[in-house]
């Protein structure tokens, strides 16, 4: 039917967007040669001036990794990755380590301004503490002094290894062991930086903590490692954002994030992921293979993941919560948008171990172009997890008729007092909806953005205010095009 084709082509046009963060910053980099072996790992460890135990930890992970196989169960297709063709360490060259933000390379500063995150602006206006990681190295952490007064530690992982080795040793790998899975093992061997965040007992972190990750150098993998610990009765809200330049070849990003919430501790972790998704033909883009997991260690602890995923050629990511403490709560709110030839296989795992534990999953998948978007989730209720409750809602929205949406829910219940609910819907943007908007004076491109944002609203509402606005714009940009 012609009409249907017209509408599809309208949507198609509306979703043909250009990536706006694809610039490359011209900064000299201090890099390791390509390839991966024990020498490279020693090189990284030396560069970072690490203690012996850290090197040993890395080497152990590497040796384990050598015997592992890349997972193939996800609903994803990509050519084999040559792990010897990747640079595992690249740092923007700075004459001296910056002591303050004013000493940071002006080129690099401009990069962040282009990204809309001028460190100074952020510092002054929004009261958000920012840690910025380019390629492999953390560039500057704002607001550190103010946080220190409360006993909050917010610094790069490299710094944490130097300054707070006892905390790092205690918690690193305690939620995601170095041998957990193929990409986590790789990360454990070669991770170069990331953020470390520690909230002492009873402290409510007074500002959003935020990290911006950026891959700048060519042929570079980014392997960051983030660790957040919330001691009893403490609270922190943390946000990460990511971008990368446009390059024809694929770049690997294999991060690990670990969260530990003690009794009545609460961690809210939000991600706005906009890595370069590749071009309209599916060339280039980031492979985003990430392991994120949190543990509610004590009673009444709470961990909440919120993610808005619009970038990356491939996303493989399942932010999970281990509900160990009684009455602990896990949440997962996700919007994953795929366009052109992007692929996403994302979801969560909620592992109920303690009694009276609750979890909530809200997943919104938006597929456009020729993309494929899968939700994969596991809800597990252990045999001692009396009165566990889970509610899952998985909705898919299709734009056009060449994309795919898939849902793979897994449920394992070993305690008969558990209640697990799953709801799923799939819908399309209808010609009636578009015409209704058009008739009110709203063009098709704006109408698509309105409909998408309406669809994703429940998740967007979970984001901190200032980032919700950004994320809404990002959804619109990711689908914007030449309709007019």
């Amino acid at each position, binding site marked *: 039917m012609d009409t249907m084709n017209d509408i599809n082509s309208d949507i198609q046009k509306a979703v043909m967007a250009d990536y706006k963060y694809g610039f490359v910053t011209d900064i000299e980099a201090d890099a390791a040669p390509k390839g991966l072996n024990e020498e490279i790992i020693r090189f990284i460890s030396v560069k970072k001036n690490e203690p012996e135990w850290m090197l040993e930890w890395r080497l152990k992970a590497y040796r384990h990794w050598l015997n592992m196989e890349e997972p193939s169960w996800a609903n994803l297709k990509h050519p084999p990755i040559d792990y010897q063709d990747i640079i595992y360490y690249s740092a923007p060259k700075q004459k001296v380590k910056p002591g303050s933000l004013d000493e940071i390379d002006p080129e690099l500063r401009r990069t962040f301004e282009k990204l809309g995150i001028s460190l100074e602006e952020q510092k002054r206006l929004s009261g958000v503490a920012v840690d910025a990681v380019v390629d492999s190295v953390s560039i500057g952490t704002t607001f550190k002094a103010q946080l220190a007064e409360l006993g909050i530690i917010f610094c790069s992982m490299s710094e944490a290894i130097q300054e707070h080795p006892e905390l790092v040793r205690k918690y690193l790998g305690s939620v995601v062991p170095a041998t957990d899975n193929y990409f986590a093992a790789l990360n454990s061997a070669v991770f170069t930086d990331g953020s470390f965040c520690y909230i002492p007992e009873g402290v409510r972190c007074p500002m959003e903590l935020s990290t911006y990750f950026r891959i700048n150098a060519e042929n570079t993998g980014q392997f960051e490692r983030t660790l957040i610990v919330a001691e009893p009765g403490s609270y922190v809200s943390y946000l990460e954002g990511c971008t990368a330049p446009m390059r024809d070849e694929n770049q690997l990003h294999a991060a690990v994030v670990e969260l530990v919430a003690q009794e009545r501790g609460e961690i809210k972790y939000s991600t706005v992921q906009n890595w370069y998704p590749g071009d309209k033909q599916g060339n280039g883009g980031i492979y985003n293979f990430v392991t994120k997991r949190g543990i509610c260690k004590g009673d009444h602890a709470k961990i909440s993941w919120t993610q808005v995923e619009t970038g990356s050629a491939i996303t493989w990511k399942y932010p999970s919560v281990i509900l160990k403490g009684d009455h602990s709560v896990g949440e997962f709110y996700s919007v994953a948008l795929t366009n052109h030839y992007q692929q996403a296989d994302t979801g969560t795992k909620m592992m109920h171990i303690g009694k009276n534990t609750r979890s909530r999953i809200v997943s919104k998948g938006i597929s456009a172009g020729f993309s494929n978007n899968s939700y994969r989730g596991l809800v597990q209720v252990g045999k001692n997890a009396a009165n566990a409750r889970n509610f899952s809602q998985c909705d898919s929205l299709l734009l056009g008729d060449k994309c795919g949406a898939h849902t793979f829910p897994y449920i394992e219940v070993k305690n008969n007092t558990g209640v697990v609910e799953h709801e799923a819907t799939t819908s399309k943007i209808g010609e*009636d909806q578009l015409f209704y908007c*058009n*008739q*009110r*004076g*709203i*063009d098709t491109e704006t109408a698509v953005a*309105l409909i998408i944002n*309406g669809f994703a609203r429940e998740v967007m509402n979970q984001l901190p205010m200032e980032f919700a606005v950004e994320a809404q714009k990002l959804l619109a940009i990711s689908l914007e095009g030449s309709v007019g």
Partner: protein
Amino acid sequence: MLTIKNLHAGIEGKKILKGINLEIKPGEVHAIMGPNGSGKSTLASVLAGRKEYEVSTGSVQFLGKDLLDLSPEERAGEGLFLGFQYPVEIPGLSTTNFIKTALNEVRKYRGQEPLDAVAFLKLMKEKMALMNVDQSLLSRSLNEGFSGGEKKRNEIFQMAMLQPKLAILDETDSGLDIDAIRIVANGVNQLRNKDNAVLAITHYQRLLDYIIPDVIHVLYNGRIVKSGPKELALELEERGYDFIKSEVSVED
């Protein structure tokens, strides 16, 4: 304001409108009546620019412009409003946000600055009072879970907010009980003035007890076969559409 000349249109190769001629002047209310399948809703859709409908011949002038040359959103910008027979639902999009976007898009088309939050709220409060619309309705997702009456009231509320030059109401009375019809008609009457015009499409005469038209047209088999003053509606009510059909076949 609106001049339709010899308009022929159809969908998927099927001819539905077979030579419509109609002239509407500012300040007038016209009603179009006719049996099912006579082309009433097609006329509304063609005027609003639904692209499934193809216009084969004829012209439509609206405020000096060739209406058929404009996209649906440009037509809205020029001041044409369609009250839908079946308003669509958009989950998660608040009615307020939708109306604000629409209003500011229309303003942009006209080269006006967007209304800021304060001015928008003031306008909305004013129209809510006029239309007797409750805040809770506007906070809900657009038309989602609305009753038939709520949907139609929302249409008329949007019309009040957008202040169109020409409002086409496509069977706004269908599916409503008499109280709901009275509320909707009241809203329309509040908005009537010497500069704007209304084209009310309806199957039944009862809406016209409340919205008194200047002219009634009877649409049958894709043509306007009879036009007359408001009393024509009563005649139709009394004698049914059959007498039109017999008259037309005699004339043919």
